[in-house]
């Protein structure tokens, strides 16, 4: 097959991944493998496209190629090929089984019953391809009383205990502003697949990987979960304060809705903060000399700090504090990020042209390898963009067979919902 989706200079060149997943978690796993050279074929159906394209909830996405304009689908599917197959019909299922025979990795994030209904459980697919690495991302795992329950990123984040820990002091539990459970599941899945690929390279053995999304997230709790086990203590929600830094908070800067954060971890930093505030005498103020005193008078301290920060640009506050040796940073929004000097100096964002959306910048590959750097070879694929390439060049179908599949709408490149 013409090597659109792969590169010979990268570690996973020659590894073929069939990505049956949707949304964020599974597709992110596929994209991380694609970035490192794997040929990743993402599988959709014109009757049931990846819901991350927005067609099931965003108005206007079902006409005028709206499904190709999703700010969600595009950034997590670069470097992939797109194949549509209607798996509810035997011909579609037959073709997917042929593809599995030619694949090294299979990614899926359905609930358990879906793969069972397709006849594509691990025991089925490993019979087709014995050294296959299959990765499944069920919310709660494939065993236990909740195995048939399903999860969004918010569900996993809540069930892993993060939400109970986050919130303003005295306020209600709060979700992260991103669907944090999703990317964490995807990062873990890709890590697990890479481990399994390493093992397979040395032994020839494939295996089934289960990423129970909540289980992947719980280790990120760290301190609070260990405090429960060691001391039976439950951590309260304390807003912008810290358990060990004082002061620690988010303060207003000049302008509307502009903010800056800072935190003080040592006596030296405390004195440096007082100098930066232009009030070196504060360091000797009996209310603030030692951390426990500062904690007791945190409100008064916050007022003093805010009085200084609110007259300055947020970047200027951060610059002055960093120069003084105090950890601080401006609270940035999307336009700030696109203009951030550190991200720009490291060329974190890359720019690419894509049909229907034009030329835009996207967050780039994160792990930077010096000899085999991740390559952005192509933007996220269009629906069914590589149907013919995959079916003809990989599965060896004739033009007339492909025409028949089109006619029967087993494949296609226009939304059918």
């Amino acid at each position, binding site marked *: 097959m013409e090597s659109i989706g792969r590169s010979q200079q990268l*570690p996973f060149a020659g590894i073929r991944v069939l990505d049956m997943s949707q949304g964020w978690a599974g597709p992110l796993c596929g994209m991380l493998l694609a970035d490192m050279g794997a040929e990743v074929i993402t599988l959709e159906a014109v009757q049931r496209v990846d819901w991350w394209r927005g067609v099931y*909830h965003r108005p206007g996405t079902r006409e005028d190629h709206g499904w190709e304009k999703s700010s969600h689908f595009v*950034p997590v599917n670069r470097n992939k090929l797109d194949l549509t197959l209607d798996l509810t019909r035997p011909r579609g299922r037959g073709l997917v089984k042929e593809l599995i025979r030619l694949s090294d990795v299979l990614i899926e994030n359905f609930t358990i019953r879906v793969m069972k209904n397709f006849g594509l459980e691990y025991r089925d697919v490993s019979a087709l391809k014995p050294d296959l690495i299959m990765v499944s991302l069920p919310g709660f795992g494939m065993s236990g009383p909740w195995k*048939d329950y399903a*999860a969004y990123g918010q*569900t996993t984040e809540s069930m*892993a*205990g*993060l939400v109970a*820990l*986050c*919130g303003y002091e005295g306020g209600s*539990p*709060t979700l992260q*502003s991103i669907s*944090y459970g999703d990317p964490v599941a995807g*990062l*873990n899945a890709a*890590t*697990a697949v*890479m*481990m399994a*690929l*390493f*093992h397979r390279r040395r032994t020839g053995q494939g295996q089934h*990987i289960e*990423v129970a999304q909540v289980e992947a997230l*719980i280790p990120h*709790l760290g*301190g*609070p*979960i*260990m*405090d*429960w086990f*060691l001391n039976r203590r*439950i951590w309260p*929600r*304390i*807003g912008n304060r810290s358990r060990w830094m004082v002061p620690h908070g*988010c303060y207003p800067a000049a302008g509307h809705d502009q903010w800056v*954060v800072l*935190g003080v971890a040592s006596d030296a930093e405390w004195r440096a903060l007082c100098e930066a505030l232009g009030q070196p005498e504060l360091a000797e103020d009996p209310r603030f000399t030692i951390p426990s005193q500062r904690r007791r008078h945190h409100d008064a301290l916050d007022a003093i700090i805010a009085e200084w920060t609110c007259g300055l640009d947020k970047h200027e506050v951060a610059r002055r504090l*960093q120069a003084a040796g105090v950890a*601080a*940073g*401006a609270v*940035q929004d999307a336009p700030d*990020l*696109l203009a951030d000097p*550190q991200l720009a100096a*490291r060329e974190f964002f890359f720019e690419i042209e894509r049909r229907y959306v034009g030329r835009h910048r*996207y*967050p780039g590959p*994160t*792990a*930077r390898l*010096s*000899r*085999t750097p991740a390559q952005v070879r192509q933007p996220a694929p269009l629906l069914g963009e590589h149907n013919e390439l995959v079916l003809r060049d990989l599965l060896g179908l004739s033009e007339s067979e492909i025409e028949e599949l089109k006619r029967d709408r087993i494949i296609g490149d226009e939304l059918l919902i």
Partner: protein
Amino acid sequence: MNEQTGPLAGVRVLDLTHHIAGPFCTKLLADAGADVVKVERPGLGDGLRSHEPFAGDEPGVERSGLFFHLNTSKRSVTLNFKTREGLAMLEELARRSDVLVENFRPGALDRAGLGADRLEALNPRLVVASISNFGQDGPYRDYKAIDAVFYALGGWMYSMGAPDKPPLYPSGSYAQYIAGLFACLGILPALYWADLAGEGQRVDVSILEAVLSVLVYDTVEYSYSGIRRGRFGHRWSLGSVAGCTASVQPCKDGYVGVYLGHGEERWQLFVGALLERPDLLDDPRFAAPQGRVQNVDELEAILREWLQEHTSEEIFHRAQELRLLFSTIPTTRDLAESPHWQARGYFQELEHPVLGRVTLPGPPFRLSATPLEFRRPAPLLGQHNAEVYGELGYAPEDLVRLRELGVI
């Protein structure tokens, strides 16, 4: 290592990391079977050893629960590599390793005499991974960072919390854990490449960029449509999705996660079967999805009235049985006591020489043929000096001398 199991069995990792991001990365490698030798400074060791929570709230370098969690399956040696002999020992360890992971300030390893060129000369197959706050270059390279700085600069915090309040701190070291995962995602392909092509390379991971990589949509959405996502309070929102049908709500005995998702089928199940209010299906205020967003306060009042009559457990199970993806809002205690995680054997117990039997979260994923396992509890400081330095050829009397000189 006495056992050679796990997907990374036989891989040798020289671990120069401290705090959270680096140790989380090497913990995953160690639990996967790699032989991870953690190099710590004599005396205090990894600063995380002095970080709460401590068993019984009693500080001590062998008493930190967080250190215990993040250093499973590793061996610990102490080494002062600012001494000439210490550096020579570190070089010897680097020569026989496949991977070196470090999270010093950028340039620190160079100044210690172990820069990229020296490492490549010592071991051309070595994968050298560096985790740093902002990356190995750029104007912020030497800036100080705490977790709040990553969330602020990375765009995570701006949209956290309520519109009429300051942006809210996410309350955890998540940036560090993500960076640890990205380090694995650089090391593992590099290791694969080293096996294929016989050459090592450097891996550079910036914690700030790691944050941006889980926050992918905000800048793209802005670039596509000029939409700047603000703070939304308890009603969750990503892009154009909004309303109280993705929110954390009070119920009879605490809180519950109401995560309805999209599609009319789910709406009908929610209103008709869960709330048992089929009359609302014909209510003009809520007939169309946009109406549910416009009339969100009224919808929320109806929802809350029902939630007040039910416990979080009742709501969670009833909703999930209807295929609605709701959640409870468990505390750490609820997690530890959950029958589901108990049935799956997720939390595990390890015997530690100082702490006794301690429970901790299990591996984050399960490989059927080569599972990740806790091969040993977190090491005591310098616990494996004799073993590891013995492997390098040092005799017990050499180690006595090195200890007296403050090298180990």
